[in-house]
Structure formats: C-alpha cells, structure tokens
C-alpha cells in the first residue's frame, strides 16, 4: 500500500462528510424557514415522504442526510481497507454496518 493511497482515505471521508453536512444543512434550513411544519415527533422516513408538509419533508431529508454521514464514512473506510487487503478491518467495518442495520430494524419493531 503506497503512502499516497493510505493518506487518501481520510481525505475521501472528509470530503463525503463535508458534502453531506452542507447539503443536509441546506435542507434543514429550508425546512425551518418554510411555514407549515410541525414540531411533533415523527418517523424520519415517513416524514420525508409525500404525505407530510413540505417543511417537514425538507427538515427530515436534511436530518437523514446528516445521519447518513457516519454510515457513508464507514462504507468508504471499509471499501478502502478491503482494497488494501486488510480483511480484518474490512470485516470489522462490515460488522459495524450490519449492527447499524440491526439497530434500525430492532428500533422499528
């Protein structure tokens, strides 16, 4: 593994984080300034759907983009470890992604 390739992993993760934060913040700001939103707790996926007011959909999309950040970072890191041949770390990251999916599945029950 060349030093250059190893150093690109944090940079790619940083780029993904920044993109998701900026896009998520734009959606959340739009949802906040738009009238007609609710302040009651809601399921994020349902709220981002078509049945909700536009303000709620925008805010929910922004929050979802923000929450996607850590998972996207994991996917990038896992892929990079796999490419480098570091199977142990790649497997660990894969298990962490599985754990996140399991948490979501258990939470929705």
């Amino acid at each position, binding site marked *: 593994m060349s*030093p250059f390739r*190893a*150093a690109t*992993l*944090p*940079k790619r*993760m*940083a*780029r993904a*984080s*920044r993109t*998701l*934060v900026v896009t*998520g*913040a734009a959606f*959340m*700001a739009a*949802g*906040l300034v738009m009238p007609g*939103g*609710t*302040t*009651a*707790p*809601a*399921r*994020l*996926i*349902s*709220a981002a759907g078509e049945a909700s007011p536009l*303000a*709620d959909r925008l*805010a*929910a999309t*922004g*929050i*979802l983009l*923000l*929450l996607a*950040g*850590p*998972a996207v*970072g*994991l996917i990038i*890191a896992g892929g990079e470890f796999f490419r480098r041949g570091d199977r142990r*770390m790649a497997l*660990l*990251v894969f*298990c*962490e992604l599985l*754990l*996140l999916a*399991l*948490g*979501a599945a*258990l*939470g*929705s029950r």
Partner: protein
Amino acid sequence: MPHPSALGPLLLPLLIGAAGGFIGSLIGLGGGILIVPLLTLSAGLPLRTSVAISLIGVVATSMAGSSRYLRRGLVDVRLALTLESVSIAGAIAGSLVIPFVPVHALALLFAAVVAISALHLLLPPRADVVSAEDTLPPKIDGSPAYTAKSIPFGLTVSAGAGILSGLLGIGGGIVKIPAMILRMGVPTRVALATSNYMIGLTAGASALVFAVRGEIPLRPAAGVALGVLAGATLGARTSRHITAALLRRIVALVLLWAAYQLVVKAGKPA
C-alpha cells in the same frame, strides 16, 4: 409542560444548539452534555425527547469537526473503528432500553454524569496530559507516530460510552477522551480528533434507533443541528481569544447548576 411550539420553534433550539456547539468545540466535546439539560430545563421538553434531539446535534458536531480533523490527518481511523465496534453495539442497546428506564432514574443518571463531568473540568489538567500536547500526530502516510496501548480497556470504556450515548443523548467523548489520553497513550490532539470522529458514529447509531421509532421532533432537531453547526464554527474561530481555564470553570458551573436542577426535577412527581 409547555409545548416547544409555544417557545419559538426556530429560535430556542437554534440558540441551545449554538451554545452546545460553541462550548463543545472549545472544550473538545460533542455538546450533548449541555444540550440535553438546556432543552429539558429551558425549553421544557421531556427528557427522552431532549435525548433524541441532542443526538442529532452530536452527529452534526462530529460531522463538521471530523471533516476538518480527517483532512489534517489527526484522526486515527483504525483505532476509532476498532473502538466503535463495541460503542455502536452499546449505543443501540442503550437507545433500545431507554423506553423501559423510568424518567426520574434517567434524570438522576444524567445528573450524576453531568456532575462528574463538571468536577472533571474543574480539576487542573494532569502534567502527563499537558506534555502529551506536544506529541506528534500520525504521520501523513496514515501510520501513527505512537502505539495505542490497553485496547481491551479502551473497548470496555467505549462500550460503556455507547450505552450512555443511547440513554443520555451524548456522544460519550467525556469518557473516551480521558481513557485514550490517560490509559491508552494516545496524544491529546489525536485523542480529541479521534473522539470527535467516534462520537458521530456512536450518536448516529443511537439516533437511528430514535429516528425509526419516530421519536425525533423534526423542526426542533433541525434547529439544534443548524445551531450546533454555526456554534461549532464560531467556537473554532474564537478559540484563540478565550482562556481555556476560564471557559472550563464557567462550563463546570453551568453543568453543576444543570445537575442540581435535574435532581430537583427527578424528585418531583411527573
């Protein structure tokens, strides 16, 4: 109990998030330890709702800060992902059991964690921690200029931090940072940056459970997240002009006040 809509659905969460993000970025934490009591005590939100909202704020703090730290090569990604394997599991467990934890017990647990954090901030920094400031960050090729020790200890602490995250809406940095610096031999700057990256994963795992359960109020959460992003940016820019010791004392006093208020609240019938 007033509904958040009666308290300015935009302004109050924004201000609370900004305070959490500003102070969190100055003292190297996610800000959840401040956001939860402020939402509960000043916005009048139920503790569990405050926990859910705070987790979104912690993810925002982490995402904003870690992109900067990752670019500078200060995050030990390998160590972070190793410790997060148990932290994520703990966070999911904590957020799954929170509906079964009585609110007064949750308030007392939070008050205890807040009080310990406040006392930790009031104590003078240890000499070995101060000297660790000068230790080099990882080399540019990604290989660390140090070797992390006591990994089993780190895994145990991370699991506990994960459970606390799910229960209390914090990232767990208050536990992870001292463990990495004092026991695992991680340089202070690297520990702060690595913890900042880790809290996003931990809080994200907890927040995901709250999100699919439909327990996150969208607009207050979006307000807190935006406030955190603004506050953290401002904090990073003004950190050179504020004395860290003075700030630590002010935050410690605010936290002690919050701990007292939470104990009083826990003692009152719901």
